[in-house]
């Protein structure tokens, strides 16, 4: 029982959350100002044509019918056709989705590796000069908005030193081939450096400061003294015991940070002209491309919900004391 029951229950909670999330998107787009047909206004629709358009989109139906239709279509994987691209939303989104996941995923991994390592060190060197410098650096990184960090990086490394490109995902004229070629090329990595750095600097602060705080508590624990008495080398106590125990709360926060990072992709992708989901969301909302906007909302929300689910499961693995109830 135990573990399996816990996972089943978590899956059930996941489904309920998902349903609530889908309903909120639906309501959000019905109450939002603006009109899908305004997308075609430039073509000079007459009143009659406009009504025909609304009927074609099914917007003349009562709300509950629209809602049922919406859920049915989503469940069958049909996200509709983008007004702007005249292509299925899903086809456009898949590409953008991977662009974002690779960018923000890399940024988060870098942020977590650095944040946890340095955070553990800061906790260990409590009261020393290193700690003070580290905390100030962490706070500065955390309080600087992402777009500002991005602009600073751009002006130093792109405009002044000219080491990295100022934006985009690949050089002009680069061949777009298969999935592998697209993402595992030197050109792609080269374009990715600055936006990843901007994200990593911003998202590093949370695990860094949190790690330091939990480290300070863990270092007061009795078992740390026993490990010292055992004559274990300091680095072993620091990483194998103290940091390993301090990592638990970081895992929970990782899910939340991943969520904000997915949201943060809006800003980083705009600053670095990165063709990802975040930028697509802003553009589709600006152009009243409703199917596309709903698609991006749906996908981003899904990532956040899924990350929370993963965090709960990871916690069971990391902390053997977790009770499955």
């Amino acid at each position, binding site marked *: 029982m135990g573990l399996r029951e816990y996972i089943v229950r978590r899956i059930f909670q996941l489904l309920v959350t998902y349903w609530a999330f889908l309903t909120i998107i639906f309501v959000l787009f019905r109450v939002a100002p603006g009109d899908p047909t305004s997308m075609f206004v430039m073509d000079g629709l007459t009143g009659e044509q406009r009504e025909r358009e609304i009927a074609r989109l099914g917007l003349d139906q009562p709300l509950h019918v629209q809602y049922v239709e919406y859920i049915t279509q989503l469940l069958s994987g049909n996200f509709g056709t983008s007004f702007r691209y005249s292509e299925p939303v899903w086809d456009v989104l898949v590409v953008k989705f991977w662009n974002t996941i690779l960018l923000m995923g890399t940024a988060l991994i870098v942020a977590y590796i650095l944040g946890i390592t340095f955070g553990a060190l800061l906790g260990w060197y409590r009261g020393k000069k290193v700690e003070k410098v580290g905390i100030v650096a962490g706070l500065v990184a955390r309080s600087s908005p992402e777009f500002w960090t991005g602009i600073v990086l751009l002006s130093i490394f792109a405009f002044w030193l000219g080491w990295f490109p100022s934006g985009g995902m690949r050089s002009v004229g680069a061949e777009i081939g298969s999935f592998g070629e697209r993402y595992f090329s030197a050109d792609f990595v080269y374009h990715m450096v600055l936006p990843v750095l901007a994200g990593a600097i911003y998202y590093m602060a949370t695990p860094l400061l949190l790690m330091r705080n939990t480290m300070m508590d863990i270092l007061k624990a009795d078992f740390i003294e*026993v490990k010292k008495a*055992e*004559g*274990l080398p300091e680095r*072993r106590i620091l990483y194998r015991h103290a940091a*390993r*125990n301090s990592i638990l709360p970081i895992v929970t926060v990782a899910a939340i940070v991943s969520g904000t990072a997915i949201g943060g992709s809006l800003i980083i992708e705009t600053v670095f002209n990165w063709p990802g989901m975040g930028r697509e969301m802003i553009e589709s909302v600006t152009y009243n491309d409703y199917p596309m906007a709903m698609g991006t909302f749906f996908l981003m929300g899904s990532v956040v919900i899924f990350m929370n689910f993963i965090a709960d499961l990871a916690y069971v693995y990391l902390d053997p004391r977790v009770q499955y109830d």
Partner: protein
Amino acid sequence: MTLLELDDLKTYYRTEDGWVQAADGINLELDENETLGLVGESGSGKTTVAKSLIKLLPDNAEIVDGEIRYKGADLTDLSMREIRNRIRWKEISMVPQNAMNGFDPVYTVGNQIVEAIQVHEPETSDAEAWGRARDLFDELGLDEDRVDDYPHQFSGGMAQRAMIALALAVKPSLILADEPTTALDVVIQDRILRTIEELQDEFDTAMIMITHDMSVVSESCDTIAVMYGGRLVEYADADTIIKNPRHPYTLGLRNAFPDITADDQELISIPGTPPDVVDPDEGCRFAPRCPFAEEECWEETPEPREFDDGHIVECHRADEAPLLREEAARKETWQQVAETEEPAQSPAGGASDD
């Protein structure tokens, strides 16, 4: 053979108010395979003395004077690295007060025993180290398969046994046991103490048992050292301390614990609180709480005096012991201190906590 000898050990803590003299001029001797009970209230300095041996002290602590002679070498001369590699666990290991919190919760107990073995004996293979961990469990009366359990899966008594297994992992010559049984109920306490005694003979290990519980030391210690306010106030073999104590503080401690053999016994507590030992003034540190304190006690720090056969007492009135013993058994004697404890009787400069 003498294993350990403390010579005028002084371990002080630096604080904003001045030096806290947590261990002030401690002289002790411990033979191989001997068990020494270090007794005193919380804050008496007993833990400081024990932790000075392996330099497991907070950052603001300093061994300001004295020698710790262990197997012929002075431990105060060794660097942190030498202490860590050669002394800690390999020579002197430790059993903490609460075994449950003494284990890292995220690794199995076996894993932690194996870690200790392999850090000190890097040539040991995984299979061999795990085999030794299982043997130790067996030795302590635990099911061998429980090496794969996490600390939280053990009961308090079993965790304490597992902790003793960990302490014996690399066969130290000395174990520091800090209140090893305080967190356990009396029946388990008794069994653990007996197990410790058996293993001590088997592994040929000496022990310093830190406790405030007179009944524990009387049962399992060869010699007893009583500490008060950072000073060693009385030191003798267990029998002498239990039957013929000379220091008023020891008399008071004995009163505070029940003797099962005596019927109709009333427990008497020592009034007052342990002294604050930040840069203390001259005079006996126990004087403010002592029912027998005289003018001399307030003004002059007593020197340790030896009575027949190595019985060391640090008290001006130690030679009046038979009289004091009689008086100390009466509750009124101690009550009178409680009533008049406040300034009236304390001449200026007597108590350090002002």
